[in-house]
């Protein structure tokens, strides 16, 4: 079948310095991946087309790009399936990363974040023996956090990273979780403490993009949630992110539902600066009938919910 691929081209050393789209037409079949198509274009149509790839089998993570606007590995994406799903085939460099040339981006932001979480086991005495069952036993705790091929899809798609370039991001935090459950590591409390700071686990907006685009099912957001749970279990409950979880749960445990007036009050209680900042919006919400009465009787159904909470505590 004859198909057309639209590719975003950019060469800082050429006369056209701006990124621009170029159409390529070629034959493709059921077995044609986007990577095979790119190789064909490079070999038969335009030798200047530049992209990264190596294993062709979703292992090396080097050919992540925007395919119809979504972060995908070119070697694992079928040309025909894309066309039937989106009615077109557009290929561009990974979003939110500096473009070096055509489809090749600078992965430095990704590596810096990974480095920042010290993605290796730290021990006083590296030679001290480790019981072999310790390592087999953690397999389950690891979830899939050790399957990462460092392709960068999750960071590129991350909505929190869109707003805040210093956010550690999904891959690095998933890696932080992977070390957090490794019994050989001796710095686990310090690591968890560091993750409470700005740009750490509480900066994730829970957009679920990382879970969806990861080609290896690492589910970074779920690992971030596990880090949050571990933090609360380790009594790191002071951050307003942790308070959001504990107070939300407390309100629902009492009333059976969320009362949107009570939650912010409880979360910021005693934090006068924050409470003060909320006043103007609070008044507007009140005027527009958007602030449920925090002193009203709990709604129907609260007794059953209280019983469920009580049962869980046992």
């Amino acid at each position, binding site marked *: 079948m004859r198909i057309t691929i639209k590719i975003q081209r950019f060469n800082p050393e050429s006369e056209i310095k701006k990124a621009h789209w170029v159409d390529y037409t070629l034959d493709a079949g059921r077995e044609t991946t986007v990577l095979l198509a790119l190789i064909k274009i490079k070999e038969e149509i335009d030798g200047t087309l530049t992209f990264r790839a190596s294993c062709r089998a979703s292992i090396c993570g080097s050919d992540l790009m925007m395919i119809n606007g979504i972060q995908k590995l070119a070697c694992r994406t079928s040309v025909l399936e894309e066309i039937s799903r989106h009615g077109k085939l557009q290929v561009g460099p990974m979003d939110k990363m500096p473009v070096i040339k055509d489809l090749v981006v600078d992965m430095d932001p990704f590596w810096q974040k990974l480095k920042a979480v010290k993605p290796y086991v730290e021990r006083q005495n590296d030679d001290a023996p480790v019981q072999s069952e310790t390592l087999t036993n953690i397999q389950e705790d690891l979830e899939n956090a050790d399957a990462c091929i460092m392709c960068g899809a999750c960071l590129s798609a991350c909505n929190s990273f869109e707003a805040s370039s210093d956010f550690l991001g999904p891959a690095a935090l998933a890696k932080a979780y992977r070390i957090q459950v490794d019994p050989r590591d001796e710095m686990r409390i310090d690591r968890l403490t560091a993750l409470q700071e700005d740009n750490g686990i509480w900066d994730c*907006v829970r957009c679920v993009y990382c879970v969806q685009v990861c080609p290896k099912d690492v589910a970074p957001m779920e690992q971030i949630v596990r880090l949050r749970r571990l933090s609360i279990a380790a009594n790191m409950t002071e951050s307003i992110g942790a308070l959001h979880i504990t107070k*939300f749960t407390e309100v629902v445990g009492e009333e059976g539902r969320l009362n949107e007036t009570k939650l912010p009050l409880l979360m910021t209680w005693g934090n006068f600066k924050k409470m003060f900042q909320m006043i103007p919006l609070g008044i507007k919400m009140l005027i527009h009938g958007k602030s449920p009465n925090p002193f009203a009787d709990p709604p129907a159904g609260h007794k*059953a*919910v209280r019983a*469920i909470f009580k*049962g869980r505590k046992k």
Partner: protein
Amino acid sequence: MKYAYYPGCAGKGATPELHQSTMKVVNGLGIEVHELDAFNCCGAGVISEADPDLAYTLNARTLATAEALHLDIMTVCGTCQGVLGGINKKLQKDKSLRKRINLGLQKSTGLTYNGTVKVKHIQWILVKDFGLEALKPFISNPLTDVSIAPFYGCYILRPESATGFDDWENPQSLEKLIKTMGAYPVEYDGRTKCCGFPVFLEKEKIATELVANRVGSAKKAGADAMVTPCPLCHMGLDIYQKDAEKIHQKKEGLSHTLDMPVLHLPQLLGLAMGYSPESLGMKHHLMPTAPLIQKIH
């Protein structure tokens, strides 16, 4: 066509206009609903961060209640849909999980869930169960010449394993509904992205920046209003829009105001069905809806 209607905390709390307009629309269309008036919170993904089994049990109670009524559930909140619908799928698939959760549920409430209920957002019900063709005769006030930016938000699309109605990469149900109402669906960047609402209380800067990006992008594409199936997105995009406007103006210049009405899906449909703005609870919005209403009438 009858459903157990799960209004969600927002519908009965900070966004009463969602419940109000939903009732107006379902009554007008003849969709029968049995309101679950003793319903509990789905946990919004927050309670599961504290205790996953607690979140499962709370949602199992909702599912068991609907099961006893022999009804499928209709949600009106993208977040409720993602959480309740996602947990439902897990409880249906994983028998040992269901057994464990039922044990606690049975002890504390006497209820058991057998996994027979379907959870559907009103957006999906309108497109599929009711059907776009069947909807057409009810559009007595087509929204001609009005441009609407569809905003899906996160949990009605992702993770795909929990939702599975629209293709998350290229969802179309809102676009189809907008067209059926006679309006024009605007293409813009950000319709499937996050509004920032989950972190407004703790990370205001990040959240406000996201609102600025989403509304700013819809504005640039020429939208008269945005429409969303999620009341939390509605809140993010409506009540924080004035703060977001400052960020937008810093990037684009002072003359670039946002002034974007953000409607709940049942509100927009209600307008197209000829109901008055008052009866759809428009007074609860922080961003003025009058210019849009004028354009429609």
